[in-house]
């Protein structure tokens, strides 16, 4: 009887160890999946901005969002959403590339280059810029918590 109990417990422990090892494998494999998920969320965000889909924007941006635009102006979530809702901020085209991702568990740093044409308070900006976005998974949803954009300086300047 005692031998049987030990055997059962040993089996349970062994299965537990295998389970943990598989979970770690899955975690290792998941960085590419996380990158795809972040890109999908970011695409959804741009689509929502173009359509002024405020419900989607509310879901995709964390309540504590900090957004710093190319003029060095810092906006919170309410201010940022109001710029979109009012039409003060419009994406006439969306073009982003040259991505870098760094995954730290439920926090992802995404950096890239944007060549989107943006109209901000009536002024059209076509200048390329570098951006850094910080996404965090909050209650099962990837949300943008911070974004900063910087114009790429003309090399001759």
């Amino acid at each position, binding site marked *: 009887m005692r031998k049987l109990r030990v055997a059962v417990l040993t089996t349970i422990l062994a299965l537990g160890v295998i389970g943990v090892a598989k979970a770690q494998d899955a975690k290792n494999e998941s960085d590419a999946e996380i990158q795809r998920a972040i890109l999908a969320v970011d695409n959804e965000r741009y689509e929502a901005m173009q359509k002024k889909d405020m419900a989607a924007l509310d879901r995709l941006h964390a309540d504590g969002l*900090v957004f710093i635009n*190319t003029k060095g*102006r810092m906006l919170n979530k309410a201010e940022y959403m109001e710029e979109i809702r009012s039409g003060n901020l419009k994406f006439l085209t969306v073009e982003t590339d040259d991505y870098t991702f*760094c995954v*730290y568990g439920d*926090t992802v*740093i995404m950096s890239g280059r944007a060549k989107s044409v943006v109209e901000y308070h009536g002024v059209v900006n076509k200048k390329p810029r570098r951006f*850094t976005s*910080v996404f965090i998974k909050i209650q099962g949803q990837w949300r943008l918590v911070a974004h900063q954009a910087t*114009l790429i300086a003309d090399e001759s300047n």
Partner: protein
Amino acid sequence: MLAGRILRMIGLIALVCPGMAKAQSDVPSRAIQQEVLKTEAARDEAMQKADMAVLNRIYADNVVIVNTRGVHLTKAQRLADFQSGDLKFLSFDQGDYSFHIYGETVVLNGRANSAVQFHGKVNRVPRKFTLTYIKLDGEWRLVAQSETLIDQPSN
């Protein structure tokens, strides 16, 4: 007897682990802010003194840096700028901090008015920055840094 001991051990581990996780998440945000500010103060001092050991410890290996010219730099490139003297702080003035804490990720925003010499050119234009710190192996490390000049005349 042996099975009973093993079961008790498993039970103990199950009780202790969630307790540890809870204790970590209950760290008051004020304490986290102070820890991050302390790390940031150490980084500021290290940048002025070109203290490579401290900078190497604080910058995460995969840190993403975007400077005020919109150039993406790696850790190696940033540290080389300090080591060579291509990047120098002529004066240091930074503040107006705001914090957002998400567990062990902290987003720190602020304003810098420091006079910075980069490759011989002095820049005194105030800038806004976003620093993202993450606790890795028990230490706060800088994983992302972005800077944007305020009211750029070219915009």
